[in-house]
């Protein structure tokens, strides 16, 4: 992965930059020792690493603004970081950058059930937002699988989704307002505890901008009343095509499950060996979850069962109690861990039109055989967000390169059938060089113009999202 050459002027000014940062932050909030900055050399895309020049861990919007003002004046690139769980390399440092971590900003600032919002500092983890309100019967809906660790700041930067966004939407649909600090230190308040901020939808473009437009230090999030209950069913099929048709028929029938998860045979076999959830051995498996009162759940599941039975499933498994429900989810929730046990893997994130599911799965199978690397598929079928896991051996020379080549081909396939490169993980550095597959030069130029407005000097997370060749003139300016 090509990254820009570090700015030698910045490298040479390290002592001055550190001294400046230490003047505006407490001593424990500035990390510049090389042994310690190494802890920030990568995020969850561990194949790429680079220790930053300095790491700062501010505790307030004011401190963030002071750091950014200083870096702006010195011309130092800044890489914002939440919890470092990005699978796309969104928080990968460069040698000449200041990593600005929000991990110490975890406070709940306001919690208002009458108006159904919570305001938090963005270093707070996703799950602990729900944790702050669940005793009172509320929850925060977006639920990325890293929710125990991932920070709201990163969720906003990547517009994170999760298993339950079929019903509740992704981060952007649950974000009411932000405090954004621009690269020059300007603090902007956008939106708040009301719906649809006035003027242009700046909130909409900030969410998902991968830390390139500003550092979001506080966020107003919509919270929802918890449903009375939820229950999954598991349906096994003898072909991917039939499972895909079943998904489509459920959606057409007017049921709105909170989640429809799909696993193919390689994924079922691997998770079964690891988690022993008792899944049927079949070509494709759906987990469908619905919500409501017990009677409402019964009614929806009866309808789903009638639809599923029309597709001749090898198994239709219902959950009689909480324990059985947990077992249905067990395999799915351990899928990534299971893969990690048997292999190194690369997790893709393309989205496709639901109608293309059987075709895409067939093509992935063919491509996988041609290149000689196994692919297991586990994904959010209701919204077409695929997570093909390409298995490889990092110690085997050439495997990573073949894996990346196959990954790129699969993402090209997603775009070819009318989908996109990434549904919820973000572009980061991982999909940066594929942006030209999905977008024409004019489409990319329009996005670059947005960054020009928010960060004219191109100092915020500058080497991400767009191909380096496309941004070269701006980064050099």
């Amino acid at each position, binding site marked *: 992965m090509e990254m820009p050459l570090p700015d030698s002027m910045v490298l040479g000014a390290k002592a001055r930059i550190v001294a400046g940062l230490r003047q505006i932050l407490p001593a424990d909030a500035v990390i510049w020792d090389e042994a310690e900055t190494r802890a920030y050399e990568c995020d969850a895309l561990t194949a790429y690493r680079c220790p930053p020049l300095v790491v700062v861990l501010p505790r307030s919007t004011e401190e963030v603004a002071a750091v950014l003002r200083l870096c702006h004046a010195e011309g130092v690139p800044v890489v914002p970081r939440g919890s470092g769980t990005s699978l796309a390399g969104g928080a990968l440092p460069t040698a000449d950058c200041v990593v600005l971590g929000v991990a110490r900003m975890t406070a709940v600032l306001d919690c208002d059930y009458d108006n159904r919002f919570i305001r938090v500092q963005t270093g707070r983890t996703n799950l602990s937002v729900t944790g702050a309100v669940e005793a009172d019967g509320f929850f925060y809906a977006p639920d990325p699988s890293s929710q125990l660790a991932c920070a709201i700041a990163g969720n906003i930067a990547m517009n994170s989704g999760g298993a339950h966004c079929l019903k509740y939407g992704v981060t952007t649909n649950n974000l009411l307002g932000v405090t954004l600090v621009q690269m020059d230190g300007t603090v902007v308040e956008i939106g708040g505890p*009301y719906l649809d901020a006035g003027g242009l939808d700046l909130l909409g473009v900030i969410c998902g901008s991968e830390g390139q437009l500003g550092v979001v230090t506080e966020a107003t999030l919509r919270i929802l009343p918890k449903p009375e209950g939820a229950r999954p069913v598991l349906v096994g099929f003898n072909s991917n095509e039939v499972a895909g048709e079943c998904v489509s028929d459920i959606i057409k029938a007017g049921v709105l499950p909170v989640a429809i998860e799909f696993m193919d045979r390689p994924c079922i076999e691997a998770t079964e060996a690891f988690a022993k959830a008792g899944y049927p051995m079949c070509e494709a498996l759906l987990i469908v979850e619905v919500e409501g009162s017990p009677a409402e759940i019964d009614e929806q599941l009866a309808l789903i069962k009638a639809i599923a039975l029309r597709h001749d499933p090898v198994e239709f498994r219902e959950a009689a109690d909480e324990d059985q429900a947990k077992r249905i989810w067990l395999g799915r929730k351990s899928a990534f861990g299971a893969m990690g046990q048997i292999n190194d893997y690369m997790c893709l994130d393309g989205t496709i039109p639901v109608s293309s599911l059987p075709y895409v799965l067939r093509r992935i199978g063919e491509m996988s055989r041609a290149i000689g690397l196994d692919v297991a598929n586990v994904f959010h079928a209701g919204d077409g967000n695929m997570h093909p896991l390409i298995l490889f051996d990092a110690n085997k020379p050439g495997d990573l390169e073949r894996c990346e080549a196959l990954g790129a081909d699969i993402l090209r396939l997603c775009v070819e059938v009318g989908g996109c490169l990434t549904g919820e993980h973000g572009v980061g550095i991982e999909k940066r060089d594929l942006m030209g597959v999905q977008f024409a030069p004019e489409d990319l130029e329009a996005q670059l113009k947005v960054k020009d407005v928010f960060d004219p000097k191109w100092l915020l997370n500058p080497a991400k999202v767009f191909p380096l060749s496309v941004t070269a003139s701006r980064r050099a300016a």
Partner: protein
Amino acid sequence: MRPATEAELAEIIAAATGPMVVRGGGTRGIGEAPGAVLDCSGLSGVALYEPGALTLVARAGTRLSEVEALLAAQGQRLAFEVPDLRGLLGRQGESTLGGVVAANASGPRRVQVGACRDSLIGVRFVDGAGTVIKNGGRVMKNVTGYDLVKLMAGSWGTLGVLSEVSFKLLPVPEAGATLILHGLSDQQAVAAMAAALGSPFEVNGAAHWPGEGTFLRIEGFSASVAYRAERLRAHLARFGAVEVEPGTARWPAIRDVAPFQDRAGDVWRLSVKPSEAPEIVARMEAEAVLYDWGGGLIWALCAEGCDLRGRLGPFQGHATRVRGAGPGAFQPEAPAVAALTRGLRAKFDPRGILNTGLMDA
């Protein structure tokens, strides 16, 4: 000027020598901008409709009525409940999808399913230099690059002219019911609506029409609607008797602000923190108000030319004058936000020819 294709639209804009007023069906525009009319209703036709994927792609000039009929035949709909403001604004004509998006037009169901911008998954548009740009697509989850889809929704044609829009859809539920409480003060009504919206019974409409009643809507499968209606009735018992009316027939009147349609005066639309709504209403001395979104949306009827923002002073939210003459239809922005807005306009419409000054305070 009435282009029939995206290419013609791009040519017209590239060749323009002066400002243009961007128009879809002309049914919901607000504010004033100078110039020749750019009529987008010729960019018409559904490009793709996949009921099994809950996806629709259509040219921006496609009539809303045509799309609604197409979806209804498959038991689906645009979830965000597009208001029909012709009665309120005294307009004729046919609303277009592009106009709906440009206005981010969203009705009572906003509280549950989000606004138009939340259902919008893709756009194609022509910017002020005549360049065709696409963003988003036809899939429900997409974080590839910046989200210009949201930016275009509610931009009132000031960043570019939409040529194609894509939506995710939802099924039309089997049944619906309306719960009605009578005789509540504005404060009590907002409290009752907060209690309802904070319950797990999936209320997707919460409006207070002073003098008429406080209305809550639930939709879903029949047995589920009956169950939730009963649970809600019990949940709201402290606010008084709750009448349960089958169906949802009274919601279009709320969505379209029917109570103001035959009355003279300026009409304002305010987005506020719901619990602050009654106090804001008390300050604004309106002739009539209608609360939607659990109090988060206030429709206010005031005397012509009234300085509503002056009466209100600072509050959390924003006020837009949707009916009435003169400048200042849109809420002034804080300086730092206004600088970003100006910057984006200058990039996307460098000559300042698209709905010039429309959204300026």
